[in-house]
């Protein structure tokens, strides 16, 4: 059992929880995730670590209330407990000093890209951030991102904050300026985390420039320790398990089309249990 010691609404349906898990907080590194089960009857869902504090022994989880389990999680309050938390899981981000890194986060993915940004920054990279959401009121962690990035760009679908359009529009714009400039180079790495269409669009764009691109894939998981293969994805024509081989992969090699279809597997069942929750 892990107690919730802080709860905060970051935006509509996006919640931040601070949970007491000293050992996970001690071991956590950027890019890793945990699996939670709220109660015995619950399902196991992966959540990327949004933050952690070794000294306080707490981790932060930021999630959007989109399905049965995340809505149930969102209904918990300070003092309540989460039945089971396993982690940290997956490989940590390989955040070495490589020069200039562009980190892109979309939607609730901004929460997930923030610790990655911090790791790249701490390693000594020049860091460009691009974050986006549908509208201003859904944009999260703008200040935190501003604090860690050398430059931060914002995109909203409706133009209520920053650039009107997608994060990829901003990325294209950025690459165009580089093209026209004589003294700046293309970034050494682009890192993207967020909705699958966004990660795919980013990867397709950077492929044209041959700029290395890392994405953090988000397939369905069960045990998340490499035992079930529910999270298998195709990368470079080979089957990988995102839970133990990832979750980060080369965006130019990932089969987004296959993953998109695999994410549809339980749609009908999810609808059924959602209806039950609503009732």
């Amino acid at each position: 059992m892990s107690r919730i010691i802080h709860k905060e609404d970051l935006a509509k349906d996006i919640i931040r929880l601070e949970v007491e898990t000293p050992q996970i907080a001690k071991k956590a590194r950027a890019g890793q995730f945990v699996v939670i089960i709220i109660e015995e009857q619950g399902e196991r869902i992966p959540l990327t670590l949004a933050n952690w504090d070794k000294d306080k022994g707490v981790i932060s989880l930021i999630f959007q209330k989109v399905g049965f389990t995340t809505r149930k999680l969102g209904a918990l309050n300070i003092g309540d407990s989460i039945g089971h938390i396993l982690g940290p899981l997956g490989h940590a981000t390989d955040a070495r000093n490589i020069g200039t890194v562009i980190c892109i986060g979309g939607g609730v993915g901004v929460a997930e890209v923030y610790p990655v940004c911090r790791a790249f920054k701490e390693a000594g990279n020049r860091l460009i951030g691009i974050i986006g959401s549908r509208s201003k009121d859904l944009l999260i962690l703008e200040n935190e991102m501003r604090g860690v990035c050398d430059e931060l760009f914002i995109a909203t679908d409706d133009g209520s904050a920053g650039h009107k359009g997608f994060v990829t529009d901003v990325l294209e714009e950025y690459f165009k300026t580089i093209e026209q400039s004589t003294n700046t180079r293309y970034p050494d790495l682009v890192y993207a985390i967020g909705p699958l269409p966004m990660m795919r669009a980013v990867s397709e764009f950077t492929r044209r420039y041959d700029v290395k691109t890392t994405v953090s894939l988000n397939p369905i998981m069960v045990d998340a320790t490499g035992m079930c293969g529910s999270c298998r994805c195709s990368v470079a024509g080979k089957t990988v398990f995102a839970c133990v081989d990832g979750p980060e992969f080369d965006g130019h090699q990932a089969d987004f089309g296959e993953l998109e279809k695999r994410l549809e597997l339980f749609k009908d069942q999810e609808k059924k249990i959602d209806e039950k929750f609503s009732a």
Partner: protein
Amino acid sequence: MRNKVSQQSAKERAKNFSEVALGFSQGEAEKEAARCLQCKEAPCVKGCPVKIDIPGFIKLIKEGKRKEALEKVKEKNNLPAVCGRVCPQEDQCELVCVLNKKKMPINIGALERYAADYELNQLSDRNRKPTTDNRQLKKVAVVGSGPAGLTCAADLAKMGYQVLLFESLHLAGGVLVYGIPEFRLPKKIVQNEIEYIKGLGVQIKTDTLIGNTFTIADLLQEGFKAIFIAVGAGLPQFLGVAGENLNRVYSANEFLTRINLMKAYKFQEFSTPVNLGDKVAVIGGGNVAVDCARVSLRMGKEVNLVYRRTENEMPARKEEIENAQDEGIIFKTLTQPVRVIGDEKGFVKGLECIRMELARGCDESGRRRPLPIKNSNFVLDVDTVIVAIGQNPNPLLPKVTPNLKTRDDGKITVDENLMTSISGVFAGGDIITGADTVISAMGTGKKAALEIDKYINSLTSNSSNF
């Protein structure tokens, strides 16, 4: 005559998840026990990987001393209710039973189960205190709470060690909980056995992935005198054919974990789903494949068991093969899948197979080699595929543990005392043998407990020499 255990009828049990075998009544058990010749040589004991005093406990059953019979079993076996149900007795104790010469071996499995189930109805007896008071307070860590880990932990606790047992899932039991289905091994039985082991003083810490949450080095630093690694063979094998990542293709592990651990067969009450179509193909011929087939049947599906050899070569227990046939599983033997066919949405809509024949020559398994028959391809009309062709050793812990040596096939290397390449770190169960039976894993768990005790004693005697 050998007394058989009565079962739920095939028609009835095909629709429920309740236990198939119903167990002996007292009369049946005592009658069967009376058949035992009480051989002095007791070949059955030699046939048992954990060396239970089989004639001894059978004699006690005959005398109506069920509780004493169980105590006798538990001198060697910490999981008797599990073993009485899932051990392949026909290949072990019953195979070498003198009465097997007339094809009527004592039904040792059913008698073990009868003895063990005594406890199910004797709740007051379960809350026992740890059997030993002279706690040496020497800490040993056991990694993985499957049959090997539970056995080793229980034996060490009986010797007076302080045992901490780590499990990555949210429930203890390993394959007994996520793998073997309810109708063959009720989870209540597993829970009961685990409560017994806790009663011996073993502390169980779930939600802890050794390698990630704590490393082996962390544990050694925390003062554990020895570590036993029993993380099992949990890495699912796939066929390597096209279409294996289509929707509704599951590894046996995923399918069984969703059903057994997460209770997807009670979806709504439990929130983990499983998405099956109407017609299922289960690929494989082992116990896991037969389990997957029988679970699918109970989910109301038409089930084909696709196996590349014939029924005679199937590694599954004969009893379970017969049960599966009686329940209505369709056996498609001498059939090898070559491709999974999908629709435009990425869901399975067929399984292309090729017919096989058995060659004269044998392969390394000693069975006749299956060979494809040219131009015999056909499409099996199914919309769900479960791949149950075996599991490999779990690579996670070795990968993150420098100095922990493994063989090319992923098994952890151990010496004759089950010690790994790291001093004080032992390993046993499927992680050193590859996928094997529950009882074989328990056998290495037992041996490891003895070796660990020897090792820790040698540390103490060495240090007292100084």
